[in-house]
């Protein structure tokens, strides 16, 4: 459109601007509408997918994990509530709820032995032993169930010690010194006072203090039976119970 000088020209320009703005708003609206539609379509397809692969999701932990990732990308949380489409269709809410209950039971049952700290791997092994309907349970499943437990304020926590993950079911707070000892213990399942002093460069007092606290909390057990007469502090939470231990 040719600009024309004078008031008439200005009015035309204003009208033109208005028109452009309207078109612009329209375009934005169309874009949003399109996006909403795309998202709705995507959600429908995801639901379709879930319906079709319900069995795979229930039976296969790797598949289940990827499904969760997919859902997360779309902003869907199948675990968000026990009601609604996802829970009803897949019973996924129930699956994690039941898992959570079993995790609590196992932690309570093993607490006298390990003081309320259990190796995530061992927890999974024990869970799989319990599952009568042979549905596979992965570490990923455990972590999800535990994060749901956390939301309920049950005091459950997953902590990392070295390369391993431990599930804590007691309010015992582990400080950095305790953590370092646990990490050291991962190599052989136990430590000696001497070893702690040497490897971590601590004073004898600091080592004994930390070890005694861990002992009192039920996280460690003493062993005076080795022929070298040195007291060993064993940590049930870092060793796997299923393998016999022998140290020379």
């Amino acid at each position, binding site marked *: 459109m040719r600009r024309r000088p004078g008031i008439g020209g200005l009015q035309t320009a204003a009208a033109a601007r208005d028109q452009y703005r309207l078109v612009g708003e329209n375009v934005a609206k169309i874009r949003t509408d399109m996006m909403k539609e795309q998202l709705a379509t995507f959600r429908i397809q995801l639901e379709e997918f879930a319906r079709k692969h319900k069995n795979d999701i229930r039976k296969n932990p790797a598949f289940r994990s990827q499904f969760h990732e997919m859902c997360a990308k779309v902003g869907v949380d199948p675990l968000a509530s026990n009601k609604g489409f996802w829970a009803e269709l897949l019973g996924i809410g129930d699956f994690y709820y039941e898992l959570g209950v079993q995790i609590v039971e196992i932690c309570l049952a093993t607490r006298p032995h390990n003081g309320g700290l259990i190796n995530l791997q061992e927890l999974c092994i024990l869970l799989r032993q319990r599952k009568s309907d042979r549905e596979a349970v992965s570490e990923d499943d455990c972590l999800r169930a535990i994060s749901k437990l956390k939301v309920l304020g049950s005091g459950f926590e997953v902590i990392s010690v070295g390369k391993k993950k431990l599930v804590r079911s007691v309010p015992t707070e582990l400080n950095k010194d305790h953590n370092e000892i646990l990490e050291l213990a991962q190599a052989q399942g136990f430590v000696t006072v001497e070893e702690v002093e040497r490897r971590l460069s601590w004073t004898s007092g600091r080592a004994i203090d930390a070890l005694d606290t861990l002992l009192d909390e039920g996280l460690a*057990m*003493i*062993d005076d*039976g080795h022929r070298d007469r040195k007291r*060993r502090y064993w940590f049930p939470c870092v060793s796997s*119970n299923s393998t*016999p*231990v*022998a140290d020379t």
Partner: protein
Amino acid sequence: MQKLGDFKLPHFFNYPPYFTLQPVRDTREKQVQLWKDLILDYCKTQKIFVIGLEEDFALFSNPVIERSLSHEAREAFLSALVSEGRAEWLNKGHRKCLILWHRVQDWADIIFRFVKDNGLEDSVMTVEEIRSGIESRGTELHGIDRTILMRALRVLEQKGKLAIFKGTSADDEGVKFSM
């Protein structure tokens, strides 16, 4: 799982610290409970009635992990069984312990059923026959410790189910059942 002959050993048996008496109370309680159950279980399946503290009782050491229970530990676990009524010290020095993997009352019930099952309600048997006679074969009574047997018989005698008397030969007692 490690085995001792036919017997399946529990996991804790292979975990060295369980062979040291634990100082922390809760841990110690758990430890004692595990050992009590193991001892009773093992004695029941192996039909062991007496444990000598200084003898080579199989459960007192585990060569695989090179650990043995100290005398103090052995006494602690057995004393716990005694407190629960599942064992008795046979002497003041706490050197021999009678293991009641069946309580005396349970043994009395077993004898009662044994008599009924074999139609012996009005008969007479020697004590030795009860524990090693043909009828006892294949039953829990076979090979039962004499001390325990006598106790159980006396329980039944108190209830009027039988009478114990001195036999004709100098070394055995007899039992007349009246059930």
